[in-house]
């Protein structure tokens, strides 16, 4: 019978999450309490919340800088990533403290709000993918560098073509060759079933099994041995496709998140300048 986890064990297991949660609460308190004090003394609490929010945004942007300075010993990247997520949540709360409305009235402020929402949304999407996709990649049983995938696909394709040619040459039958040209050539050409892989679907596996089952009945025993080699290559290719889809998502969302975040920082700096010119 499995041993029930003790309370101390649970705390130890989640110590990091609890620590980050407490840290977030402290930071938020450090923004909310002085801002409340400013409000109580009829000064502008937006000064506190605004500058804090801008500082948080800069801290969030620092993750990108940290990645570029990978040679420097600037704390572990995993720490930076966790901090990025937590600071993002705190920034969302600080945004609400600062703006106190869902949708401002001025055009540039609306643009700023829209950018903040989009950056937050893409951040949440990216965070979610980062929780799901690496697990799925691990479950695939292989590791491959994303940039290496085109080369590996070419290699598998060449091996598949070699297998088909060897079959034709050795057995004098073109059944497998025609099958390859009509079906698998399309499959080995480039990554396929991207959306299915991204969703965690099994369309590729079904498709391979279906094609193989269709042709199997027309093949001799010797041809079937070649078909099984082809099957192994197709399954390896499907795993590469899964990596291409999942790793692609983990990289492509940044194409939206980072430019939007940069634009938001520019507009936030503009907003700060305007406030200082016109109001303070």
């Amino acid at each position, binding site marked *: 019978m499995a041993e029930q986890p003790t309370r101390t064990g649970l705390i130890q297991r989640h110590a990091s999450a609890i620590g980050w949660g407490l840290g977030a609460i402290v930071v938020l308190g450090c923004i909310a309490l002085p801002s409340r004090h400013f409000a109580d003394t009829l000064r502008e609490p937006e000064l506190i919340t605004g500058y804090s929010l801008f500082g948080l945004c800069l801290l969030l942007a620092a993750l990108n800088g940290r990645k570029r300075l990978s040679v420097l010993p600037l704390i572990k990247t995993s720490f930076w990533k966790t901090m990025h997520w937590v600071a993002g949540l705190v920034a969302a709360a600080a945004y609400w403290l600062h703006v106190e409305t869902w949708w401002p009235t001025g055009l540039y402020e609306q643009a700023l709000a829209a950018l903040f929402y989009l950056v937050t949304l893409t951040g949440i999407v990216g965070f979610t993918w980062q929780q799901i996709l690496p697990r799925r*990649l691990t479950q695939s049983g292989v590791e491959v560098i994303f940039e290496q995938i085109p080369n590996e696909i070419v290699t598998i394709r060449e091996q598949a073509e070699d297998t088909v040619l060897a079959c034709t040459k050795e057995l004098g039958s073109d059944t497998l060759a025609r099958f390859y040209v009509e079906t698998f050539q399309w499959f080995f050409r480039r990554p396929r079933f991207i959306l299915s892989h991204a969703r965690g679907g099994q369309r590729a596996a079904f498709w391979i099994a279906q094609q193989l089952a269709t042709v199997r009945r027309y093949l001799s025993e010797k041809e079937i041995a070649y078909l099984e080699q082809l099957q192994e290559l197709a399954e390896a290719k499907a795993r590469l496709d899964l990596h291409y889809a999942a790793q692609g998502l983990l990289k492509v969302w940044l194409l939206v998140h980072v430019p939007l975040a940069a634009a938001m920082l520019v507009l936030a700096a503009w907003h700060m300048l305007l406030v200082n010119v016109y109001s303070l």
Partner: protein
Amino acid sequence: MAERFTPSPTAAYQRPTLPFRCGRSGTWERPCWQGPDVGGRCGGTHECAPVRRGDRWECRRPAAAGGSCAQGPLPDGTCPHLRPACVPLPSLRKLRGRLTLLVCTLLIALLGAFVNFGGSSGGALAIDPGPLSNVHASFTSSAGCTSCHIEHDLDGLAWVASAFTSHDQPGQCLECHAFEGEDRAPHNTHYTGRQDLPDVGCAACHTEHKGNDFDTARVAQAACTNCHRADVRSFNESHPPFPKHFPHQKPGRINFDHAKHFGTYFDPNSKYAKQESRDAEFAGRARAACTACHAIDEAQREIAPRSFEETCAKCHAHQVRQRPLIVFVPEEASPVTAFVLALDEDIDDDELEEKLAQFLRTVEENGVDGLAAGVLRTHGNARPATLLEGLSASLIKAAAAAWQTEDAEFESPETNETDPGGWHAGEDDEGNQSLRYIARRHNDPVLRGWIAFLRKAYSDGDDAARERAQATLEFLLSDDEGAGACGKCHRAGLMQSRERLASVRDWRSGGDPIRPLTRFVHAPHISLLGPDASCRACHQIDPSADYAAYFEDPTDVEQYQSNFRAIDKGACERCHAPGQVSMACQLCHQYHRKPQFNPKFRALRQAGTLSGDEGLARHSGKT
């Protein structure tokens, strides 16, 4: 545990940080082992870059790409295996950088395109944080942002530099808005007991640029509880009880005893009912309805009484003419004469006689001018024309001449029976010789002039002058003898405020502002309860109060007792309760003291030559 995918032997090491990748990988062909250079040019047009060793060229194709070729380099050192150049593709990282740069550049270009520096009006989409409220939008339609933000008038770099200097934004608001009291102090009030309170900027409570329909004056309830920490959840549950004697803690300026009037003077069975001067019909009306005296159609927080002629005059008009202002009495130092001639209280008889004789000689020679010169000599700030208005030069000359004779008697000329008011000299009804003035009406300018003259002398003069002015004022405003019977009603208000310059307000009903931040509008209450019943629903006469005590000695405000009972919270709670009428703080409490427009701003607006925004621009020192 996941197995590392076995890389093919021809695979080149691909770093995610490299800015470009082989163009062949984009078409899912095998990428060359060299890959593009950092500038994005194809690096794989030859299979290798041979190296010269001694007099031979050696192939440098790595083992992963097939190792040294059998053919070897050409004699000139070039690789014999040529490939068409590819078009390298940017890596995802490079693409991200490009996209970021593009978006930021586009954004900055848009900001630049839609910002207007240098005071141009309107169209500054990149600056405008939202539409102005209607009330401000109309003032700023042509001058634009500069109407309220003078920084908008600056050019480029100066505009940016202004971000690093502080601005007096509330000062911009106060160009147009004004308040009674200190503009920037909390509640426009200097609280002597709370020196720690900082000035408050307008933006602490008011926001703008929230849309045309936004009410900038409306402030959230929370703005009150920021400072007022009393745990007031709702009016009926936790609002503190009203103060003792609320709202009658302080006396008004007019001595009017409601209890005595209702209980005695208006009573048709009282002994006063037989007095000829009493208007019985009016007394009956006044006894039945407060509206006989109070003009509820103009009701605001206070309900001012109707005019003297419509109310008090019905019974008291004759008293105004019964009591003359005695200016001069032969051979005596009347209070007014003593003041005009600056006579000391302990002056001996000979000196007094000499001074009076000298005064009469001057007046005999110069008439009214002589008298006026006497006043001017001792009190240069007076306006003798008002004080002596209507005084005949021949009358005063003749009287002065007669009073210098041995019997000191002047026979007054025939008086106009229909209008006994004005200046008189000679014997009065009691057989005494005097120069006197009889008020022609209530609010008589000559009597008001003398009282104002004495008040000014009191506030401006030295100790001796103040003492004489005080004594003369007491004489003029005495309940029994005071000229024109002014003091009967106005004594307290005028004596109380004698330290300051004379003001029309000192003669009027009402009192100094009590609870200036408390708001109450009578009109809706009256319309709900009915014009007569509504008054007594809240204002109940207290016959036991000693109302007269304060008016006998108006220096001690503490002893004032209103002849109305205090209004308690329960009176309001009958309607202002959950599910009934609003209980919001700001329904009864206002932050500002008498919000109004700045008079200078209003003057520019009223000049007619300026539109609102032009006036504002000029007022801000802009052209």
